[in-house]
């Protein structure tokens, strides 16, 4: 008896490993190996023609921490995340509720909200140049009607980051709306009617029933928005190139600059490692803290 049971268990373990193998191979090739390589590379100095690379331990990290640009870029990215994540999620929810209601031309409304998502980020950025161009752009034309002078939205440190943030929100909200829309359509209309019969107003229904039922979707969107707040930098290439004076520079853009414009690969590797660590911690916190408070059906 025992040996049969042990045999069965070994067979199941074998199946398990066999099923996991393709994913393991791919992950090793394309995720684990590059991560370890990056980590290893960040421990070396930048090699030049005269001075070859040498092992310098954590010196790259020390240099980063002492670099004021690092702190500025990190702050920029924090502001970028703190603005784009909540605003785009809130907008997405409002748009989804609107597009889910019984309104005329519902299809048109949904398509209109979703269009920005289908545009490539570079195209979207080009589009927004038409809004932001000083003097000629749509925003300044409208401002001129009210007698306000031209503003260089992308060219001054005070407004550059905000201008970039607005483009990101515009791009993301429509995408997230689709997820909320799908989730809203799985909520039976009976629930709303039951709540109304029980005396709940629109706001009470939203807060006590709708939002809790949308929590799994919100978590999913939150993770996506967080990833995007690090990942989504394409528009910087068109709009500001991180300037002026680093005012709109984000971490990933700076990593790209360090690696491919200044050719300081080890420093870029050190930066990458730091981003990886921060993202890893955030992911763990998110799933641990939120998972417990979410009702999955």
């Amino acid at each position, binding site marked *: 008896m025992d040996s049969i049971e042990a045999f069965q268990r070994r067979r199941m373990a074998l199946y398990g490993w066999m099923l996991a193998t393709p994913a393991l191979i791919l992950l090793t090739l394309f995720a684990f190996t590059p991560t370890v390589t990056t980590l290893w590379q960040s421990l070396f100095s930048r090699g030049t023609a005269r001075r070859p690379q040498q092992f310098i331990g954590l010196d790259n990290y020390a240099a980063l921490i002492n670099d004021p640009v690092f702190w500025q870029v990190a702050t920029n990215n924090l502001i970028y995340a703190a603005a784009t994540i909540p605003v785009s999620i809130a907008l997405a929810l409002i748009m989804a509720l609107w597009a889910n209601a019984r309104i005329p031309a519902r299809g048109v409304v949904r398509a209109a909200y979703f269009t920005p998502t289908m545009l490539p980020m570079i195209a979207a950025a080009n589009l927004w140049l038409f809004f932001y161009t000083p003097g000629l752009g749509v925003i300044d034309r409208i401002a001129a009607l009210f007698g306000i002078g031209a503003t260089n939205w992308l060219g001054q440190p005070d407004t550059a980051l905000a201008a970039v943030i607005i483009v990101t929100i515009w791009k993301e909200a429509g995408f997230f709306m689709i997820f909320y829309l799908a989730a809203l359509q799985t909520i039976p209309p009976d629930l709303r009617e*039951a709540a109304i019969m029980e*005396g709940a107003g629109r706001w009470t229904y939203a807060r006590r*029933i709708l939002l809790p*039922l949308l929590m799994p979707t919100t978590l999913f969107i939150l993770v996506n928005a967080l990833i995007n707040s690090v990942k989504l930098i394409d528009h910087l290439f068109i709009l500001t190139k991180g300037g002026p004076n680093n005012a709109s520079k984000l971490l990933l853009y700076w990593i790209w600059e360090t690696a491919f414009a200044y050719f300081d690969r080890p420093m870029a590797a050190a930066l990458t490692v730091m981003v990886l660590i921060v993202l890893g911690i955030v992911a763990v916190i998110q799933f641990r803290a939120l998972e417990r408070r979410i*009702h999955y059906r």
Partner: protein
Amino acid sequence: MSNAALPGLERLLNMPEAMRPTPLIRLDSVSKRWGESVGVDAVDLEIHEGAFVVLLGPSGCGKSTTLRLIAGLETPDRGRVFIRDADVTARAPAGRGLSMVFQSYALFPHLTVRDNITFGVRVRGLPKATIAERLGRAVAMTGLEGLEARKPSELSGGQRQRVALARAIVAGHPICLMDEPLSNLDAKLRHSVRQEIRALQRNLGMTVVYVTHDQTEAMGMADRIVLMDRGRIAQAGTPEDLYLAPASMFVAGFIGSPPMNMIGAVHVPPALRFGILERDFGGDWVIGVRPENLEITAGGDDGLPVRIRDVEYLGAETLVYAESAAGPLIARSPGPLPPLSGGGASARWAGTAQHVFDSTTGRRLEPAPAIRSSRGTVPIPPADQPRDAAGHRWCNAHGGL
């Protein structure tokens, strides 16, 4: 239900018409349509306090629409809705003082049983002590003790149904609307919950408007049945009224199982034309006979010749399936039958058991005969005469939350 238990009821029924209390719920020629599809069409309905009223009819006949119009979840295109003499046509559902049990139960999946039941009273801001007291009572009444902390997904179908009931009880409203509350339960459970709902309604003195498509459920539970057909009321009355004096062929066919036998006039032998030829009905007519009033005997006498196809012995009763020139017939007799040969037999019925309908309009032609029921001979008034008040059974209305 014996009349001795209801001294007040006797007095109410003997009151002159004008002195009787006004109905609790009144629909005044209410219509609702969506484009081409008709929800309800000019429905007039009166529901008295403490009554258990069942809206019955085939799928799509407008039962749910009627219920939702009372609830305020739909607004009528035409007509008015009154509750306690107040015109509530434009009033929001929450302001009408009624609770509702949905077919799907509509429990909030993320809330515990306790929070589901008390959702409404918490929203309305009732004092904590009151909520706790009502919760305790509702939970005890519906037998949900010990399940208060569970989520709906951790309950069986029957338990979920009880939570929905408890939510309606806790609200403390005098009116409860139920839309096919038993349709998601298995047959055995359905039978016991049926009685529990009836007992709850009696104990709380609630007025219940109950939707179902199941005529046995309606017959068993209702003080009053409102049978609907394609958005209109086909007949309203006590279960006895509908069974003993159906106002149309539709009612006759819908109420009773197996359904009433319909026999075209040309096939009725002279010996069974009880008083019909003498009176001129003008046009074609159809004789309806309930299976229990149809007697099939061997031998060729002056009855309707039939050929016996099958005999089903069901213990308490036996069903005989026969073929005749007028189509298939079903007869029901109590207990086992002496063996009938498959050959020549004939069907007969008593003159008092026949229902006569106009075959083109489907309307009842003849005033209902006095029919021997289990309670003795009951004279039935003509079907086309309104007989709301007299035909209406009342219910004791003491207690209440």
